[in-house]
């Protein structure tokens, strides 16, 4: 799979939605049946450049996520490949049934990009936090669910998502993150990436949690001399079970996702390990079963043991 003609260097800071916006134009060059639909979030979704290049391939349904998903379904029925943009909670909860019934039931090639995954939008309050989106989308038949770990991946994710020709949900956090991989890293939907090797334990994470796990693993090496693997489980469905089994063989797994614990990555990982019959210590980190007042993501990550320090402590406790 060829990379997009956008150059990003390891360590370069770029927010996920900026990365998407940057590559939409070239994606549109490659896929002439691609259309972009938003629900009054053209600006915050960064589709400006694409719109300037292809104004007649952009649709805006207004603040109407249900219409957004159904219109996308109708266009996909007619041979187009719609990319839809909305905030994660509005896309997946307000329009959950439209996604499930209008898009997934007919297995249509619609890519749904949800911004504000997990606590990343905490400063806007719980209305704008995608705390349940992963669970809801995983439960929709035919849906592929992706949460990329870095901007370099996003470009490849979008190409891969265009090519599989079935429904794809991509959840994105808002914060700027550094790239984890060299530009030529091979990206495949359903195949986890391993940005850090180690056999004494493993973090299995998605999105921003991968970065926190990298930091935690580095500190554990420094403090305890243990080598902790970091598994970037960028595809939540279908899960890369082989990567999970390999991680379980280390005997210690900490799974973390910026999402509610219930229905989140940790439960999927735990169930895969249990079904396969591996004996393995497992801790899950994510958002607890509560709504919280408006708060900064860093505060919420720290409060719930999801930041680098929390993940460090979780893994340390397994030794």
């Amino acid at each position, binding site marked *: 799979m060829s990379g997009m003609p956008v150059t990003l260097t390891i360590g370069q800071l770029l927010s996920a939605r900026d990365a998407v916006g940057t590559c939409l134009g070239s994606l549109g060059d490659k896929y002439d049946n691609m259309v972009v639909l938003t629900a009054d979030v053209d600006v915050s979704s960064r589709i400006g450049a694409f719109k300037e290049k292809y104004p007649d391939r952009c649709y805006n349904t207004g603040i109407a996520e249900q*219409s957004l998903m*159904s*219109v*996308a379904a*109708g266009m996909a*029925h007619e041979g187009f490949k719609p990319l839809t943009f909305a905030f994660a909670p509005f896309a997946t909860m307000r329009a959950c049934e439209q996604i499930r*019934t209008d898009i997934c039931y007919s297995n249509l090639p619609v890519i749904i990009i949800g911004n504000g995954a997990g606590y990343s939008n905490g400063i806007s309050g719980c209305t704008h936090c995608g705390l349940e989106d992963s669970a809801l989308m995983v439960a929709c038949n035919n849906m592929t669910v992706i949460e990329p770990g870095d901007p370099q991946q996003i470009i490849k994710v979008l190409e891969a998502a265009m090519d599989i020709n079935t429904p794809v949900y991509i959840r994105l956090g808002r914060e700027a993150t550094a790239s984890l991989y060299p530009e030529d890293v091979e990206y495949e939907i359903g195949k986890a990436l391993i940005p850090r090797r180690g056999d004494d334990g493993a973090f299995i994470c998605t999105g921003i949690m991968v970065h926190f796990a990298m930091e935690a693993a580095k500190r554990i090496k420094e403090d305890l001399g243990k080598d902790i693997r970091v598994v970037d489980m960028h595809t939540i469905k279908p899960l890369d079970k082989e990567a999970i089994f390999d991680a379980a063989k280390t005997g210690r797994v900490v799974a973390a996702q910026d999402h509610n614990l219930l229905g989140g990555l940790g439960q999927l990982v735990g169930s895969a390990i249990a079904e396969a019959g591996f004996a393995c210590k497992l801790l899950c980190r994510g958002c607890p079963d509560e709504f919280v007042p408006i708060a900064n993501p860093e505060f919420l990550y720290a409060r719930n043991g999801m930041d680098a320090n929390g993940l460090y402590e979780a893994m340390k406790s397994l030794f």
Partner: protein
Amino acid sequence: MADKALVRRIDKAALDTKMKLLDLCHQTLIHIGGDMSVCDMMTAIWQYAMNYDVKNPRWEGRDRFVLSKGHAAAVTSFSQAAIGCYDVRDIYKEYGTDFGRFGMHSCNLANPYVDVSTGSLGHGLPVATGMAAALRKKGSMSRVFCVVGDGECDEGSIWESAIFAHHYKLGNLVVFADRNGMSFDGNTEDYMSLEPFADKWSAFGWNVIAINGHDMEAIIEAIDSLPATDSHKPTIIIGKTVKGHGISFMENNPGWHAGCLNEEDWNKATDELTEACERKWGVK
């Protein structure tokens, strides 16, 4: 004025479909009330309005059909069978069977004559607007025909579509509204009033045609009066209809939203239809 022979032919086809619906309703549970109310318009859609090739349901040049009131699947299937999409006997054989093509709601997984799977209300019209926008983008001269129920218009998603179709000037979108005045629980005006129904659509910028949805001549004339496919206003044909139309004990009776006819009721219903047919056409 619509051609009399044409009106007569389609009207008789509608009566034939109503009789078949009663037979199916004798065999199993169907949404007979809403099937009967929309039957005349549904027949006209498939016999007259749609540009369609029964041998090639995926023909790109076809008009599209979306059954937004997805529970009217039986009347849709019979109307399609009447133009040759299926052998009508297959509907009786397969209705509600495992992986069969026919059932309570339209499903495209096993049936190539269904473009869009429906059943959950307020979904069909939104998808139809997306199809209409897509056809516009492709430069296609095909129309999208969509049948909505009136109770379904309680759903907010219907009105999201109404503003979308107006904003994107989808003159290739034609909605038939089955204004039978009833939802599951009873009269719409008692439970969740929709009037002034036509004015609402006008206010949303639609071209509104209000007719008696059981008057075949009026239905044909409404179809004849549709604006050009490349015009800029979506059209809604609001057919005032009667739920359970033509069967005395079903008409306006919420108990017959869905049901199965026992032997006695089936006899009574078929007798009534036969008599109505004789009165209208002088023949059985």
